[in-house]
């Protein structure tokens, strides 16, 4: 064949090709801020999972004579709460519910919102209009208001709080999913796939998912921080978990009366929410910029 040569001279050494996600991971690992944030998140998550082995005391066992001890007390490293329970222990255990209530709604909304959004974006037409107009209605509520309205109407409880927050995040993720899918759908490579006779499910699996899940995922990670704050906020209002369960928002609420006695101890649960939320945010930012680098 006459055209055996390629267009430009290639480096003689064979370079190992890397997939997109390998590249993203490599760039992310070089981002000190994102990696620090990831380590903090990992630490908190691991501590919550292995709470019984890590925590120094029983999270439910109080002591009426040792209430509201200060930080660095002989018996309590981070002081004790209004019922004399060890704060450090309760903060470690509290991560279980707080992370669960903050993370699960985003995960659920990611699955549901992506499916709905990818469907609406790929199908287009009147089905898209119908879905997206419905989504617009939920979008017309500020998210805090919608979360409180739903859990206020459904009643207090962990399950109801998770359901409410999931409903809050589905429209947001659906919008992003629909927007990216609509964009990808008109790409030439999707048309080329259609031309080669592939059915819609094959095209979505091979050509759409790989290109839309990344951006949707990044968006979802940026929601975790909001979700954590909202979930703990619901507990703070008394709409989420119930005493004596350790949960950061609820602990913050019950310790409100102690701000004149032990202000530092009273502020601790909120600080945990803050640290977790900002770590998720910084990690999400790092992930976004690692994915945005032009190829």
């Amino acid at each position, binding site marked *: 064949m006459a*055209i055996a040569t390629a267009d430009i001279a290639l480096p003689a050494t064979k370079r190992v090709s890397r*997939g997109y996600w390998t590249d993203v991971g490599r760039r992310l690992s070089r981002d000190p801020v994102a990696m620090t944030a990831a380590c903090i998140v990992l630490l908190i998550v691991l501590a919550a999972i292995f709470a019984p082995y890590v925590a120094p005391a029983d999270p439910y066992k109080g002591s009426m004579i040792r209430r509201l001890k200060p930080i660095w007390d002989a018996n309590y490293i981070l002081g004790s709460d209004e019922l004399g329970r060890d704060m450090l222990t309760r903060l470690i255990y509290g991560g279980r519910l707080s992370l669960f209530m903050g993370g699960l709604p985003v995960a659920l909304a990611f699955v549901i919102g992506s499916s709905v959004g990818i469907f609406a974006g790929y199908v287009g037409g009147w089905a898209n209009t119908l879905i997206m107009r419905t989504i617009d209605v939920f979008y017309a509520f500020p998210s805090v208001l919608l979360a409180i309205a739903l859990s206020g109407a459904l009643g207090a409880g962990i399950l109801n709080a998770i359901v409410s927050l999931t409903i809050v995040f589905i429209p947001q993720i659906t919008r992003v999913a629909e927007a990216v899918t609509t964009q990808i759908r008109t790409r030439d490579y999707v048309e080329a796939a259609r*031309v*080669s006779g*592939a059915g819609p499910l094959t095209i979505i699996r*091979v050509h759409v998912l790989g*290109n839309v899940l990344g951006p949707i995922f990044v968006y979802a990670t940026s929601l975790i921080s909001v979700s954590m704050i909202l979930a703990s906020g619901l507990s703070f209002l008394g709409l989420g978990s119930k005493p004596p369960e350790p949960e950061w928002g609820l602990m913050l609420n019950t310790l409100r009366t102690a701000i004149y006695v032990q202000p530092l101890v009273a502020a601790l649960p909120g600080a945990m929410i803050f640290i977790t939320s900002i770590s998720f945010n910084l990690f999400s930012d790092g992930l976004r910029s690692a994915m945005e680098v032009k190829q």
Partner: protein
Amino acid sequence: MTLAVDLDDKDRGGPAQPLLSVAGLVKHFPVNRGLMGGARSVVRAVDGVAFEVAKRETLGIVGESGCGKSTTARLLMHIIAPDAGEILFDGEKVGTAALDLAGYRRQVQMVFQDSHASLNPRLTMEETVAFGPRVHGFSRAAALSRAHDLLHRVGLDPSRFAGRYPHEISGGQRQRVNIARALALRPRLLILDEPVSALDKSVEAQVLNLLLDLKDESGLTYVFISHDLNVVRFMSDRVMVMYLGKIAELGPAETILQNPRHPYTAALLASMPSMDPNNRTQEAPLMGDPPNPIDPPPGCRFHTRCKFAAPVCSAKEAPLGAVGLDHAVACLMAIPGSGHPLAPALASEAA
């Protein structure tokens, strides 16, 4: 592995029957301009186009951007559905029991203009080329082996390129992969929508030569779309000039390029940069942009920019009429007795 694909490749109508025959092709895009979606306007992207492509020939389609070239390509591929018109492929009407869309698409493939946008950034080259065969039931190993063969045929060493991603190779190499993908289903007709216009000039020549070689080797038929007359001249046996969704002129490449009969074709030729310093372009052959295809001018659509325009041109539309062997033009000046001052007199009057 014997496939239905190979059986379909059999020539049915013999060499005399056109491979592709298009009649009355129309595509109007609605433009929503009014409140509440009322008072719709349409873009007449393709407005009654008819032509044939003979077996093993290359038909070049030229025109300015917005003239309907790419829409025509997408209509031929059935990526978008035409509003009217029919497409016959080797004598069979597309979309009937004799030749359904899937069967048609196995024999007709397309190469897109933007080599980057037409490759999935998450797939390696071999995965991209193997996708079509996989869809048509090839095993993974068989599809990959075909992909490697095709990469080799388009001049990319599989051992170096098969595992690469689109962002790791050059534009010309990407376009070679696009060609390999289009060939993966062993089509008979390739629709090439501006395949080289995004490439550097040096790379352009290599890709064009590759296309010519592939055509000779595999007995392919091409519909080659470009805005560049030089490229079309190099590639095409016959040329079709489009203006605002209609055919302005259609005929053998040499005839059209040596002796254009439509003022628009002449203007396009005159606007080509010339290598001859004694043949410099003196005046701008084409003024301004094409008119808005939402409201095309009445009569001949070119009359607003035509230097031979006469009053009759805005009143009467010129049909596509034969002016020579296999040569047709849509201009009132070519129709005897049309009322245009430059038109030849009717035979009866001359006598």
